[in-house]
């Protein structure tokens, strides 16, 4: 399995914050330093991703730098530059502005990593979409990202949505909240102070297992849409259900029994939140699931 290096993205323009986000301080330390130290507790080598114009900035220059070496701008170029600089290495990519990101979350991400896919990422607690800036990007993603950029793409999230990464349910609701405005900064400060003990305690494998176990037994609401033969057999085109099913495979078993579907799971594909999915991916509350019977377009 390729080794994982850490890459902290600190090339943003911080326009909404109106000051350099990397320099914002929490508990006496800049969030760039906090992010680098967090990554260093889990990766052998850690770099800070910067634009060429930022190499002389003292805050950034205190760390090993990886300067954007490819045309364009934005996080996608930072990720591509890392993959290009070390073609045999996978990258733990983290944005520098995630003050709630914990060791437990990073440890879980690395434990769950699937090196056969292009990436392993948390999904957003808010919209269920992949979070490209707290993710492990595998070496093969380099060429795929180059192709994506060549066709005019620039959004790492959209890239992940098209390339079926392994997706992980977030360990807690705000673990990946990023901080873009002065108001959000003030709120994050207050929350971090209030939760000091809790956040620091939420490390280690026991906490991770606890969080996963809890997720498994939760009853949650899911949106199901049916098409074609399955729509006719279910007698409806959509429904909201409460279920304890942990994965789409479990869910199909449950709904198959309820609606008498004649198709076997092996004949179907499944989509979650508008994208093809693995049958074993963990489901989260609010997920929209579609079972896809054998297709016949054209």
């Amino acid at each position, binding site marked *: 399995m390729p080794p994982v290096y850490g890459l902290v993205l600190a090339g943003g323009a911080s326009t909404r914050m109106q000051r350099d986000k990397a320099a914002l301080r929490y508990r006496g330390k800049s969030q760039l330093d906090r992010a680098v130290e967090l990554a260093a507790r889990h990766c052998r080598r850690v770099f800070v991703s910067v634009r060429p114009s930022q190499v002389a900035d003292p805050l950034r220059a205190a760390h090993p730098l990886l300067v954007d070496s490819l045309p364009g701008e934005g996080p996608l170029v930072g990720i591509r530059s890392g993959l290009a600089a070390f073609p045999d290495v996978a990258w733990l990519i983290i944005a520098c502005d995630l003050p709630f990101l914990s060791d437990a979350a990073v440890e879980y991400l690395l434990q769950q990593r699937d090196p056969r896919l292009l990436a392993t990422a948390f999904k957003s607690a808010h919209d269920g979409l992949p979070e490209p800036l707290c993710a492990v990007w595998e070496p093969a993603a380099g060429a795929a990202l180059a192709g994506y950029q*060549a066709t005019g793409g620039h959004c790492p999230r959209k890239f992940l949505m098209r390339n079926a990464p392994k997706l992980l349910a977030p360990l807690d609701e705000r673990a990946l909240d990023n901080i873009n405005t002065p108001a959000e900064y003030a709120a994050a400060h207050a929350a971090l102070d209030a939760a000091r003990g809790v956040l620091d305690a939420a490390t280690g494998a026991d906490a991770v297992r606890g969080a996963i176990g809890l997720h498994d037994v939760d009853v949650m609401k899911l949106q199901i849409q049916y098409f074609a*033969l399955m729509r006719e057999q279910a007698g409806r085109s959509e429904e909201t259900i409460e279920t304890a099913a942990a994965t789409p495979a479990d869910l199909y078993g449950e709904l198959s029994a309820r609606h008498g579907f004649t198709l076997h799971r092996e004949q179907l594909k499944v989509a979650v939140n508008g*994208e093809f999915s693995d049958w074993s991916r963990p489901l989260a509350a609010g997920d929209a699931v579609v079972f896809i*019977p*054998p297709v*016949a*377009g*054209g």
Partner: protein
Amino acid sequence: MLFRFSTSAIDAAAARLELRDAGAGGFVSFEGWVREHNEGREVTRLEYEAFQELAVKEGDRIVSEALRRFPIKHALCIHRVGALCLSDMAVWVGVSAVHRGEAFDACRYIIDEVKHRAPIWKKEHYRSGDSGWVNCEHCAAAPHRSHDAWAHDAGR
């Protein structure tokens, strides 16, 4: 947009104009039409249904792949949904390119991949009065066959 659905008759003449390019020396298109028979049954009409949110994404990916794999200028695929009569156009694929060879290859690639990958379903209505979802029904009508046989049918 590289792939889209149409709820009314596909206007191939208009679609073709979207692919014009002064650098292109050729244009190839494929039209899929509703046929009066399928697997020995007499077909009278069809219905197409799609999971449009994902089908548009997957269709877009397929045409993007063609644009990467083949040195072509432009490509577009339009698929019908809704009720269709015999001889109606169900799908249109167009490709413009510097040379004809790549245009033929890319056009073939797009229609083949769309048929296999896009979540689109076809219900055939037969002269005998019954109907069936293509690739779904007669697997389901033979529930005692092994999984391997089912998978084989599904992959046709």
